[in-house]
């Protein structure tokens, strides 16, 4: 488990080969709570009328929201790749897109410098264990990510962050087009992609049930083993 100050990147937490699939962290409710609440205490007092030069509390909340979304995508593809239920072109897509999502998550985590909460536990409820469900879920996650990043760009205030997050958008849209093509559905269903608000995306995420409670694997108490 990472210590305060350690980089949060998924790779840095792969101490034991778990590939960052699960860390102690947020419940489903906390996913929303953290997404909508500002970090608090950042202290970047800025004139309300002027564009923010530094990241505001809201900016940090947006980045944390994006990080959790990226973590979910990253773990989804990592699991799909590892569990062996997909092959061929599907597997190749999971490998390439998964690597990109892991990289995006690392970039966001580094930017947040461990001020972000740790990653939630994810239960994809079979979506990483079955080809058909993998494809459908991948399409949904990439479309959701595309809309979420677009909405985040609109919401951010610090100019550098606006551009930095905007640069995450085209790769996400490429992923969306690719997964749709692999799934056999129209890769570009609309002439213009539309943004979604942070809260709307969080509601969709929570509705999936993918954010799970962390299992309790350690406890205090005298063992009752045979000795």
């Amino acid at each position, binding site marked *: 488990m990472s210590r305060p100050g350690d980089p949060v990147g998924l790779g840095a937490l792969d101490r034991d080969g778990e590939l960052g699939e699960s860390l102690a962290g947020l419940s489903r409710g906390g996913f929303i709570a953290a997404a909508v609440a500002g970090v608090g205490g950042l202290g970047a007092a800025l004139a309300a009328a002027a564009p923010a030069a530094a990241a505001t509390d809201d900016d940090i909340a947006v980045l944390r929201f994006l990080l959790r979304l990226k973590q979910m995508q990253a773990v989804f593809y990592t699991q799909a790749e590892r569990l062996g239920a997909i092959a061929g072109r599907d597997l190749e897509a999971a490998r390439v897109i998964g690597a990109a999502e892991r990289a995006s998550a690392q970039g966001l985590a580094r930017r947040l410098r461990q001020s972000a909460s740790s990653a939630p536990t994810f239960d994809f409820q079979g979506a990483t264990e079955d080809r058909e469900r993998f494809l459908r879920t991948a399409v949904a996650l990439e479309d959701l990510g595309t809309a979420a990043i677009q*909405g985040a760009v609109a*919401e951010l205030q610090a*100019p550098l962050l606006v551009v930095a997050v905007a640069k*995450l958008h085209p*790769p996400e849209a490429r*992923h969306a*087009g690719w997964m749709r093509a692999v799934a056999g559905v129209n890769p570009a269903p*609309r002439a213009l992609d539309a943004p979604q*608000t942070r809260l709307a995306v969080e509601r969709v995420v929570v509705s999936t049930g993918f954010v799970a409670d962390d299992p309790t694997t350690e406890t205090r108490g005298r063992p009752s083993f045979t000795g």
Partner: protein
Amino acid sequence: MTQPSRPGDPLAASAGGDAPARRDRGELLVKAAVAGGALAGGAAALVLLPRLAGSAPSPEGDVRGLNLLLEIEELQVAFYEHVLATGAATGGLLEFVRTAAGQDAKHVATLREILGGDARPAPRFDFGQVGEPGWRVAARIEDLAIAAHAAQMPGLSHDALIQTLGMVSVDARHASWVRAVGGVRAPRAGASEGAMDDRELREAITALGVSVGSGG
């Protein structure tokens, strides 16, 4: 001529009306006297404004950036019309070309509407030297819009960036789609996009065999 943010912006129209507090960046653009129109020969059709990559957003940046994107979108539309005219595309490629042509035409219309009088006249494109106008060229042309936009991002106002993201996003979908049609095995790797300034775009278009002349 400028417009303030409209109350019915996309984020306010979300379910539950829970739009985030969007800071208006002020006036979107002022009319800028954009030099241009008379383009040099060959492939020098792109907006030949002084290179201001990495500079802060400005009205001039918006006009320049949006016109650059407009010309790439017009290139896309013209290319797809050319492909359809040749009758060479069939099956999945034909389906892609038909869809992308219509969607990129929508991008052109939207950009022209945004730019209003600041929109540059559409260039004329000649694809006679392109060779096989197949999926590879289509993929490359879709990539150009993404690369152009990436280079212009720092100079675009927040509003202009928001307005163009949804178009370039669809270009990115197109880029993946047509590669899948072409039988590419895996999606394009990378978590970020390369940017191309106007000179690099011009060179890339020339390399495709496309000739660009001034519009009528």
